[in-house]
């Protein structure tokens, strides 16, 4: 049984200007010890998907339909806030993008680190502090004994993100949800954090959902990747397959727009236009207006995610029908 199984998750926001379908029928699963990447551009629904799993979408204006979202057999969407609190921070850890704003500036690092332990476990304060110090050492903060009692402003961005990771992992969760955890950091610090996540994953059977817009980060870290567009999953594949044999035209276009994968001097592939307005109903495939392969059928019929090879699924009608040639070598 997978650790997490999300079925037909739909999250919408009811605003004055209309109903904004941020997540529109997303299904996936995560096994124990597996790292999955969710990639997509701003507004594609990656962060809202994560927030929905954890009950962090404010309702109203948010509204969550669909499901179930089964975590180790329990439907997270059916749990009340009390039930969710028992899972969040204990069995599922979270790390958010902005290390500068996600720590409380008034509290010492030590108090923030041991809070999940004091809430979720029967533990004395000294014992919790000892574990906090070990955790800080594990995430590579030198001089942890002294640093433990510092305030967030005494830490740099990279160190704060380590503290966030330490906080998310201190209760030894089974699943870590990391939403763009390295986006605000410099590449050298990002490399340290990625290395740290890989080490933690090897040492425990931690499952990770890693949300990012950077395909390069995904390729080094994840086992499997979900590509999101306009609130839907358009392609899902093992990481090697996604980079070497992407099938959905959106994934292929993304790949061709990355400077690192293109020879110097050649113009980058730019996807024309912009993602669709999610407050209007979308007829057919949401990518059709920007797709070079789109036909009339794409504009009227909604494609479904279909598995075309073991572990590789995509939602393109024409590629499913074999009408789009496989990528050039």
């Amino acid at each position, binding site marked *: 049984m997978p650790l997490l199984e999300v079925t037909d998750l739909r999250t919408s926001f009811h605003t004055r200007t209309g109903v904004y379908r941020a997540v529109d029928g997303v299904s996936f699963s995560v096994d124990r010890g597996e790292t999955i990447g969710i990639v997509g551009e701003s507004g594609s629904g990656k962060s809202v998907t994560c927030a929905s799993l954890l009950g962090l979408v404010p309702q109203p204006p948010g509204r969550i339909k669909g499901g179930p979202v089964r975590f180790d057999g329990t439907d997270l969407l059916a749990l009340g806030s009390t039930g969710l609190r028992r899972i969040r921070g204990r069995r599922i850890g979270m790390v958010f993008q902005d290390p500068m704003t996600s720590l409380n500036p008034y509290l010492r690092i030590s108090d923030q680190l041991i809070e999940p332990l004091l809430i979720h476990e029967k533990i004395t304060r000294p014992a919790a502090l000892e574990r906090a110090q070990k955790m800080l050492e594990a995430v590579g903060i*030198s001089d942890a004994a002294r640093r433990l009692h510092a305030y967030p402003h005494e830490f740099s961005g990279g160190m704060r993100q380590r503290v966030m990771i330490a906080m998310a992992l201190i209760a030894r969760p089974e699943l870590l949800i990391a939403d763009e955890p390295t986006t605000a950091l410099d*590449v050298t610090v990002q490399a340290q954090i*990625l290395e740290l996540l890989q080490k933690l994953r090897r040492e425990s059977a931690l499952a990770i959902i890693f949300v990012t*817009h950077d*395909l390069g980060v995904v390729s080094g870290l994840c086992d499997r990747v979900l590509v999101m567009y306009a609130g839907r999953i358009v392609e899902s594949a093992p990481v090697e397959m996604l980079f070497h044999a992407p099938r959905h035209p959106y994934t292929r276009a993304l790949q061709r727009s990355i400077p690192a994968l293109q020879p110097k001097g050649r113009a980058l592939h*730019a996807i024309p236009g912009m993602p669709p307005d999610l407050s209007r109903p979308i007829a057919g495939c949401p990518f059709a207006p920007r797709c070079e392969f789109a036909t009339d059928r794409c504009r009227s019929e909604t494609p479904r995610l279909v598995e075309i090879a073991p572990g590789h699924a995509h939602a393109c009608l024409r590629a499913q029908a074999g009408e789009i040639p496989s990528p050039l070598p």
Partner: protein
Amino acid sequence: MSAPLLELHDVRVHYPVESGFIIRRRTGTVKAVDGVSLALAPGEVLGLVGESGCGKSTLARAILQLAPVTGGSVVYAGRNLTTATAGELRAARRGLQMVFQDPFASLNPRMTIFDTLAEPLAVHRVVPRDQVGARVTDLMNKVGLAPRLLHKYPHEFSGGQRQRIAIARALALEPRLIVADEPVSALDVSIQAQILNLLSGLVRDMGLALLFIAHDLSVVKHISDRVAVMYLGRIVELGPAVDVIERPRHPYTRALVSAIPSFDAASRRQRILLPGEPPSPIDPPRGCAFHPRCPYAQERCSAGVPPLLAAGPDRVAACVRLEEI
């Protein structure tokens, strides 16, 4: 190579650090930029890379005299801007424009796109009033935006479109040099590709010189002819973009290049992890600023600031152990 359009000679930007409640005393100096020399030819794209806090944005601002240059000189088209009068500076700025990182903060939300683009034309009296409309339309076409959008306000545009508007504004005065400070960092990859293609096209078609600042090395490699790597206010390596990024010589550049998330499993295994983070520019390490994090550091690295040494054709690097590592 033709005569340089822009020359920086030993440029320094030092800020005083003051402390004390009533009696303010100068207690230190932040050396944001500490002795940078560079030259940029017409039609050339120079990439400037480095981590946050290394002084790359301060250097960009110093070129346009938007940051106080406390030492050295900035020479643009033969004129020393650091000693120029306000009038001379204004005249020079016609040829010297900037594009900023955040397209949400760099456009005035109360001005329509037409007003934004027409303002520099009016300030510098570039064209007669009756030709402003035609000129603005022309600018919109150059950056790939439909002229019918001219009477909209910035909030009606996406990030990529706003960055196009910011580029159009920079082009309004027909500059010879554009300084672009992280112009694509805030954009999604597919939009980033559009803006990179636009900038490369403008450089090619208009013979612009471009100083392109970014922290993303793959972007810099793609667009630049030459690249300069900065660490703590100084240039540590400078040379042709492909050479520097594919065969870095300075230990810092090596670490930086190896930290790029790679699509290739073999190069991932050779990642050089730097311990710690860049030191504070208030209290930089003695000698080579990189030596406390450098895997090759020796005692003599802390003795003095290493000069830029020849490191191959058109290449320099500031490391005393260059020949040994």
